[in-house]
Structures are given as structure tokens and as C-alpha cells.
């Protein structure tokens, strides 16, 4: 989806149309930009930038709090449109998904035709525009989807893949974050063509195991399947108490220690989430969950703890005995692709 959160705001509040809109906390706060409209992007504003800095770049930008319910609703409509074509849909985030249309329900021969249809349907149903990337593997499809934004699509065929990759800036590669980008540039790797000069072994030596990935990407090799079960939707930690408790302070202490563990786990996977979930199990085994969606992706223990404390106060914990507490983070943003995949265990076959 193109500038998803901001586009939904502009759609629902016509007075924002054509104006630089920033979804996120106000400039005075310590917030960051969760999303911004294309008008705001012209000023150099992008998501994850501190709100204060965004304000400096464009003082007339309009800051809005955002409406998660509306985004979720749009996401639901879009997802059901995807499923009219295939059940092989792998959501990457609230506004992005991979689809494998090799076999598709309406039996359309060309993926680009499907993309046109889907984009039309999305526009008709939600009044929002979407962009698509069409290719023979996930990496190329993802990069291609960014190529002709907004409201466009790009096809990368096996014939033009090599040229497409050669011209690709290194920061656009799968798994190349800011740090790696710097390292690559220091090595003189500016584009895909530069990366291609390195052998798999050389890249592995420089970057470790992930070097193998970079090699594959540079050579257009990516055989990760589109898998609906792949993406872990939440990461959580929980703690069963030795004995049931009613003391709120004690619960806070436990939640704090859970938040610390969770922070470690989130950082380890390099992800942040937009939703904090609290789980409370009472002494009669009844469990409840409470959640809050926020506009700055969280991963640090203190913020998570503060949110959970608020959530806990909305429950009857304390009035009733509690036997388990848990926190999880969902609605991931950022490096979603590196989330640990497939927690489903498998047989260890021998042949």
C-alpha cells in the first residue's frame, strides 16, 4: 500500500488531501514518524524519523494521531482481495504481502494482469492506492514493488533480472540495513553490479553466514517459498508464578522482569512491534488478554513495561488471584523478514 497510514487519514479526512501529513506523536513529544504522506516525503521526511526533526523540515506538516481501527479494517479488505486469487499469501506487515500466483484461482496466465486487477479492486473497495512488484522470486518482487510507487507496478522477468539487479543501489538489497550498507560502501560496493564481483566465499568471509544470502541476491537466486505459516506474528514471554498472588507491586516486578527478557528477545531478532499484549491467567485457569496499539514501534523494556502496567490496571488482577503473567509484542515493523521462521517442529528423517 502506498503511504498506508497517511493515505487512510487523507481518505477519511478530506481536509488533509494534498497536504503533508505525518502519522505519529506531536513534535513536542519524543515520538517518531510512523508514516507520512507523499507530500511530506518531498520535504525529506520519512518513517522512523523523530517527530521534532520532521517538524523542522516542514513546519506546516499536519501531525495526526492515527486510527488503528481504520488501518486494520482496510487491511482486512485488502487481504480478502488477495485471497480471491490465491491462498498462498504471506503478510509482511499490515500493508504488504507476498503472493504466489503460479497457480491462481481465476487461472489468469500473467501475474501482471493479476496485479492490475488487484490494484483496481483495492482502489475500488478502499479508495487507496497500492503498488506491486512482479517477479519470479520474493526478493525481486519486493524490490520491484518499491520501484514504481505510488500506484504503479514493475515486472522483473528472468531476462531483465540481471540488469535490474546490477542497477540496484546496495541499500535496497534483502537484509542490507544501515550498518551493512556502510560496510558495503566502504568496500566500494555501491550497486548490485559491484556486489556481483564477489564470490560466495569472499562474502561469507566478510559478512559471515549472511554473506551467502547477499551472494544469492546479487545473482537473482532466492528460492524461499511464499509460506502462509512462515511469519511469526508475535513474540512473547510469560511466567507462571510459584504461588498465586494478589499483590499489584509484586505483579509489576514480575512484569518488569518479563519485559526485560522480551526486550532481549526482540533485539536478538531485530524487530519492533506496534502492539503490546498482556496476558493474565487467574487461579481458576481463566485467561484474559489486553492489548494496546501504539504508533512508535516498541522493543525496549521500559516502554513495554509502562504500557503493560497501564493494561494491568484495567483488569481485575489483584481483586482476583493471578497465577500467570505474560507479555507479547505483535504487529511487527522493521526487519520483519529476519524473524525466526517456522516454529513448527519437523521430523528428523534419515534416508
Amino acid at each position, binding site marked *: 500500500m502506498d503511504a498506508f497510514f497517511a493515505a487512510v487519514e487523507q481518505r477519511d479526512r478530506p481536509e488533509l488531501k494534498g497536504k503533508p501529513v505525518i502519522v505519529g506523536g506531536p513534535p513536542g513529544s519524543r515520538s517518531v514518524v510512523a508514516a507520512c504522506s507523499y507530500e511530506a516525503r518531498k520535504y525529506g521526511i520519512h518513517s522512523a524519523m523523530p517527530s521534532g526533526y520532521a517538524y523542522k523540515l516542514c513546519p506546516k506538516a499536519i501531525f495526526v494521531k492515527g486510527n488503528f481501527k481504520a488501518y486494520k479494517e482496510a487491511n482486512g479488505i485488502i487481504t480478502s482481495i488477495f485471497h480471491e486469487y490465491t491462498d498462498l499469501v504471506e503478510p509482511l506487515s499490515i500493508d504488504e504481502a507476498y503472493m504466489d500466483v503460479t497457480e491462481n484461482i481465476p487461472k489468469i*496466465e500473467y501475474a501482471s494482469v493479476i496485479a492490475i486487477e488487484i490494484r483496481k479492486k483495492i482502489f475500488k473497495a478502499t479508495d487507496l492506492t497500492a503498488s506491486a512488484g512482479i517477479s519470479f522470486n520474493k526478493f525481486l518482487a519486493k524490490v520491484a514493488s518499491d520501484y514504481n510507487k505510488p500506484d504503479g507496478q514493475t515486472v522483473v522477468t528472468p531476462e531483465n533480472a540481471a540488469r535490474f539487479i546490477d542497477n540496484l543501489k546496495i541499500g535496497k538489497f534483502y537484509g542490507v540495513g544501515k550498518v551493512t550498507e556502510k560496510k558495503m560502501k566502504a568496500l566500494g560496493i555501491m550497486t548490485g553490479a559491484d556486489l556481483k564481483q564477489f564470490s560466495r566465499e569472499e562474502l561469507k568471509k566478510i559478512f559471515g553466514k549472511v554473506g551467502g544470502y547477499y551472494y544469492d541476491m546479487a545473482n537473482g537466486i532466492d528460492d524461499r517459498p511464499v509460506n502462509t505459516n512462515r511469519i511469526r506474528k508475535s513474540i*512473547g*514471554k510469560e511466567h507462571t508464578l510459584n504461588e498465586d498472588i494478589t499483590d499489584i507491586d509484586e505483579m509489576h516486578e514480575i512484569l518488569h522482569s518479563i519485559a526485560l527478557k522480551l526486550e532481549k528477545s526482540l533485539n536478538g531478532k531485530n524487530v519492533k512491534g506496534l502492539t503490546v499484549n498482556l496476558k493474565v491467567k487467574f487461579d481458576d485457569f481463566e485467561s484474559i*488478554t489486553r492489548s494496546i496499539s501504539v504508533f512508535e514501534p516498541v522493543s525496549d523494556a521500559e516502554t513495554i513495561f509502562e504500557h503493560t502496567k497501564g493494561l494491568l490496571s484495567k483488569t481485575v488482577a489483584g481483586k482476583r488471584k493471578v497465577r500467570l503473567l505474560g507479555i507479547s509484542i505483535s504487529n511487527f515493523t522493521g526487519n520483519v523478514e529476519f524473524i525466526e521462521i517456522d*516454529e513448527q517442529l519437523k*521430523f528428523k528423517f534419515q534416508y
Partner: protein
Amino acid sequence: MNFTALKDELRKNFQLCSKTADTKSLQPILENVIIKAGDDNNITMMSTNTEVSTMITMKADVSEQGITAISAKIGSEILSSISWNKDENIEFIIKDDTLLIKSGDSKFNIPVINYDAYPEIIPVSEGSSFKIGFANLKNAVRCVKSAVSKDFLKENLKGIYIEMEDENSFNFVATDSRRLSFKRESVKSVALGDGKKNVLIPGTVMDDVAGIGEDVEEVMCFFDNKNISFYLNNIVITSSLIEAQFPNYKMVVPEETKISLKLDRSLFINSLKAVMPVARLENNCVEIALSKDCMIFNASSPDAGVASQKMHLTDELTGEVEPDFRIKFNIKYLSDAVSSIEGNEIEFKLIDSVSQAVIKEIDRTDYFSIIMPIKLY
């Protein structure tokens, strides 16, 4: 070529035959169904996608022998579009370069397609063979098909493995490496040639064969090292065998389990149904907690909250369960496994929260399903 046949029968057979025509092939000729009118007042329809082929023979009044190709897609559409009355006839006539299809007041003139490049279809008709009741075959496929891998990269897991170690009954096995289903079914006769005792047949083919049926009573199968042919009355389906090696599935069948639960099948199914809507939102995960006499199914999702369902066991569980024991599964795997069971008494056997679990009917060994759990974190 000139023949007249019962339209309803021809339409049904043509549509069945169209299934193996290859609409996505690089060889456009494979998009067609071949119809051959023979001298014995029979017509034969054939199609192949080079992996699987169908050959169907039916009665017709042949006044001139001949052969033609007709697009599977166009043919099916024509045959289903003409208003049809069960006992009406349909006529196929080739005149010059046109195929004329006539039925009642409808008439279609289709340019003749050159069929010279169409590959020859040769069903296996000698060598190793076995005969199985159609109901048995259908049941075996029904029990194991959900475990067939849908990952097109896993060549050796895309099939149903038929193990012919016993001459009275065969084992049908499928696994996608996360779950495994096993069904033993009796066979009517077996004649194995040069020692080949097992075959691996594409799951989709087995599903198609099992789906044929109405009035089929038994299936005769011939196979060699490369192909297998299923003879069902007037229909012959031939498929390439999967040459990749099926895993040694026996090693994941646990010899001993630590915990055994006896359950009522319908209660179990209802319990799964109760938590299914929430489980579906979170990668189909369902968590099971155990105590001496009951099982609690929990599913939770940040969006939909928590669903919890308690189910009493038919008998106290046997074995030791740690307090707070939990195990997590893909709920679909559990429901697939129990839906293959016919009786109402189920045994659910566990080792621990990271090892395979077995689901089977009590006192029966002809069917079981083995499921790997989802890691708890």
C-alpha cells in the same frame, strides 16, 4: 470421422479427460483432448500433460473411423453450454478442415487441429500388478492425503507412498515432515515382478483416481519402474512415479510413549471447533494443557483474545504428567488426523512437548497419524 454418442456420457467423459490436458504447457498441442473413433463402435478420448494421462473409452455409433484433437477448454465449454437432455445424442463429423459438432438445435464448426505432434499415450499393461477394491483405495487416500506435502520443491514428499510388503494388505503413507499419516488397506490380489515392492505416486493423481468413481468397484493397477496405470472400468489413468526417495517413515513412529489419553472423538472434534476461530488467526496454533482427567484447549490471538475449551477424558490418563504440562499443535493437523478415524474411541499418545504425538483409534492398528508439535516459547 463421423460418430454419434450419448451427449451426457460424452460430456462427462470429456470433462474428466480434460483434467489432464495441460493448459499451461509450452507445447500448445497438449492443451487438447484427442478423440479417436475406432472400428469397434467405441471412441477413445485421451489427454496428457506428460506426467499424467487419461484414456477413456465409451460406446458410440461410428460410421466413419478417424481421429481429431479438440481444445480441452473449448470442448468442455461447448459441451456444458448446450442445453442438454440426458438421452440426447451428439454427433461429431469431420468434413474437410472442419470439425462439426451437432446436437439438437446446436451446431458448432471448429477448425481442425493438427494432432501429429501429440505424444503417444501408452498405459502400463504388464509387469507388476495389484488389484484393490475401489472403496479401499478411496478410503486410504482419504486418510492420508492431507499429510501430502504441498511444497513443490519437496519432490519426495509430494506423493502417497504405497508399501507392498504384505500380499494381503498394503500400507499407504504420506508425510510433509511435520505430520505423517498411515493407513493399511486390504488388497484383492498382488503379482509383483522383479522385486519392486514400493511405489511413490503423486498425491494429486491419487486424489484424482479416488475421485472418479460412481460405479467403479475395483481398480487394477500395473506398474513398472517409471509409470503406474490405474484401470477403472472404461478409464485408464497413467502417471509417472516419483523417483525421489520417500523417507524411512518407520523411524518417526515412536515405539514407546509416556502419556496415553483416551478420548471421545466427537467431543474432541467439538473442542477443536470451539477454539478454531481464534486459533486460525494465530497461525492455527492451539495449546493443550493436561491434567489427570481432562484436556484444556487454549487458543489466543492479540486481536481476538483467548478461547478456552475444557474436555473430559473417557478414562484417566495413563503415565506421568508434569504439573503445568503444555503442548502446542497446528489445530488443522489435529482435526485432519481425527477426521480420518471412523470409530468414536480415540487414543492420543504423547512423549513430551517437543516430540511427536500419535493419534489413532483405540485397539486398531490400521490407521494412525503422527504429528510434530509447535515449539513453545
